[in-house]
């Protein structure tokens, strides 16, 4: 099994390298370290979100409300910053993560305690969270001139030549890698996805594990909320509209199975980078940015076909899937 995963990520990395190489033929400065660093920085928010989405997808669930959560928490911190410029930036980031966590926990609680299918829950909360953004803001925007300089500049500060935004993404990637592969909770997320029945027999609480996964995706959506608002320096109801599908696309391209249990942190990162490189490369090679959507759509379909082929090589199922009532 492990070999297949390895091949999968190596394969994706080769495709990305080939893409960078092909674009560099057209525009030599594209592969420069500065530009590649820029692309990584641009993709950081997507990477953070994709890791949150991944932990949910691994448990056979889906979180459609991440972009709405991002929009809501972003508005909360932007309004806090606009009305109380004195609040330190670290407090605001903690507030963002906390608000995101609460919104994620609402999703998780509805899935765990009430037993509504995740897709229905998050379809509902998607509209509720985005609508609530309108309610708290009264439909007004928070512009750059209302935000404090620290709020805007914090994520642009370079530490050892790397912007804080990129560092945050790197940190989240490392924490997630350790969490998913080295902790009991992380392993139970995989176990629930691979075989829920077997997982229950080994003493894993399926509902609670899903709840935790939703909390994680909420927390990361909250963190991304601050990062997004301070990067694009505008908070409005329209922020990240429809972005939930980009997040899922990054996961799918990264080889994370929508049927749960299959996926890796490396895959999610590479899937995000794939989309990030496409959106950065199109203007460079003189293709209208309007092509981006169709290209990522084709990439998703292509990736699913490949995913399906690698998933067929699964081991023998010893314990039959139980009928879910």
């Amino acid at each position, binding site marked *: 099994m492990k070999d297949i995963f390895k091949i999968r990520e190596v394969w994706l990395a080769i495709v990305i390298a080939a893409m960078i190489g092909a674009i560099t033929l057209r525009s030599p400065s594209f592969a420069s370290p500065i530009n590649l660093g820029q692309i990584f920085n641009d993709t950081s928010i997507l990477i953070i979100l994709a890791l949150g989405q991944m932990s949910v997808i691994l448990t056979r669930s*889906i979180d459609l409300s991440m972009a709405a959560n991002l929009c809501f928490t972003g508005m909360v911190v932007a309004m806090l910053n606009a009305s109380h410029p004195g609040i330190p930036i670290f407090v605001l980031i903690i507030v963002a993560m906390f608000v995101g966590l609460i919104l994620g926990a609402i999703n998780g609680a*509805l899935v765990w305690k*009430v*037993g*509504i*299918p995740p*897709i*229905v*829950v998050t*379809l*509902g*909360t*998607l*509209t*509720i969270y*985005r*609508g*609530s953004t*309108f*309610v708290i803001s009264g*439909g007004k925007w928070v512009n750059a001139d209302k935000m404090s300089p620290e709020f805007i500049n914090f994520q642009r500060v370079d530490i050892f030549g790397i912007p804080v935004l990129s560092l945050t993404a790197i940190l989240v990637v490392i924490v997630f890698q350790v969490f998913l592969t080295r902790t009991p909770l992380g392993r139970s997320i995989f176990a629930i996805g691979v075989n829920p029945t077997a997982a229950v027999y080994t003493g894993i609480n399926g509902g609670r594990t899903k709840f935790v996964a939703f909390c994680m995706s909420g927390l990361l959506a909250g963190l991304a909320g601050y990062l997004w608002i301070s990067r694009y320096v505008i908070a409005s*109801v329209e922020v990240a509209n*429809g972005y939930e*599908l980009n997040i*899922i*696309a990054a996961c*799918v391209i990264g080889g994370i199975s*929508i*049927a749960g249990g299959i996926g890796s942190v490396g895959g999610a990162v590479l899937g995000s980078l794939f989309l990030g490189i496409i959106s950065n490369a199109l203007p460079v090679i003189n293709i*209208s940015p*309007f*092509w*981006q*959507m*169709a*290209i*990522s*759509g*084709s990439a*998703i*379909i292509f990736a*699913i*076909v490949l995913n*399906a082929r690698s998933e067929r090589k699964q081991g023998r199922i010893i314990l039959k899937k139980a009928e*879910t009532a």
Partner: protein
Amino acid sequence: MSAAPTVRHIPDRLDKALTSILLSWESLLVLVAVAIFIANSLASPYFLDAYALSDLTFNFAEKALIALAMALLIISGEIDLSVAATMALTSTLMGFAAQFGVGTFGLVIIGIAVGLACGVFNGFLVTGLGLPSIVVTIGTMSLFRGVSFIILGDQAYKGYPESFAFFGQGYVWGVISFEFALFLVAAVIYWFLLHRTNFGRRIFAIGNNQVTAQFSGVRVKRIKFILFCLTGLMAGIASILLTSRLGSTRPSIAQGYELEAITMVVLGGVSILGGAGSIIGVVLAAFIMGLVTFGLGLLNVPGIVMSIFIGLLLIIIIALPILWRRFGWLIKA
């Protein structure tokens, strides 16, 4: 002559007790719809007006047409998130054709054909290649709308023939709009298809247990393929109506319709896990969503705030029966 042998009659369904009808999902929806209707007429003096109520139907007819086909698809255990993108692509290609002077009849043919083609594409990917429909249709959603963006960019198509406006703006009889009449006819057809034909029974069979259905001789893949085609077809028809109503096409047309159509289906009592649901429920849910958005619109509530009500309605109305069951179980125990 001996008496004719007595034939034991075994009904294929048991007679429903009155209480079970009263406690059914559909009755709950009727109650909610009536409550919203009364609340609306008390809240706004403009609500109880034939033309206002007729306007109301424009609010949901297009999405509800898609919801009818989507209900069948979801009952069979699949889903199609690409319907709004299908509408965008259909509308774009109709607009493209209209630039070359294609007449109303030709545009309708194009609309139906493009919608159907998108459905065939989805159906092929899901049933032909055996891929999970939720991610396939997320992919085709980007692809279809992406093609619209490639063709149109930030431009818009206008200049549809005058007679084309009838589909989205015309009235068939008195205050009954063409859109509403078409929705009612389609609802009857889908009701018949799902609840009165072998095809419909097979959809339920697939949704309840695909493997059993396969072993019982149901052509699972073929039926699912047909359902994807039907969903694409309905999206094409909905696109004709919407394009005709707006009179212009942008690539962002019908954005978010897929989620509203699915909300209608789920609100209508169709199990998102497949195997259960009724067309009457979906029709009632369409009315409820239309009533909520229209009533709140008369009260000058912005559209985005209405979406909170729709979202809450979706979660509460699904949570209630589950909590009710749990509550009842607690009392017995």
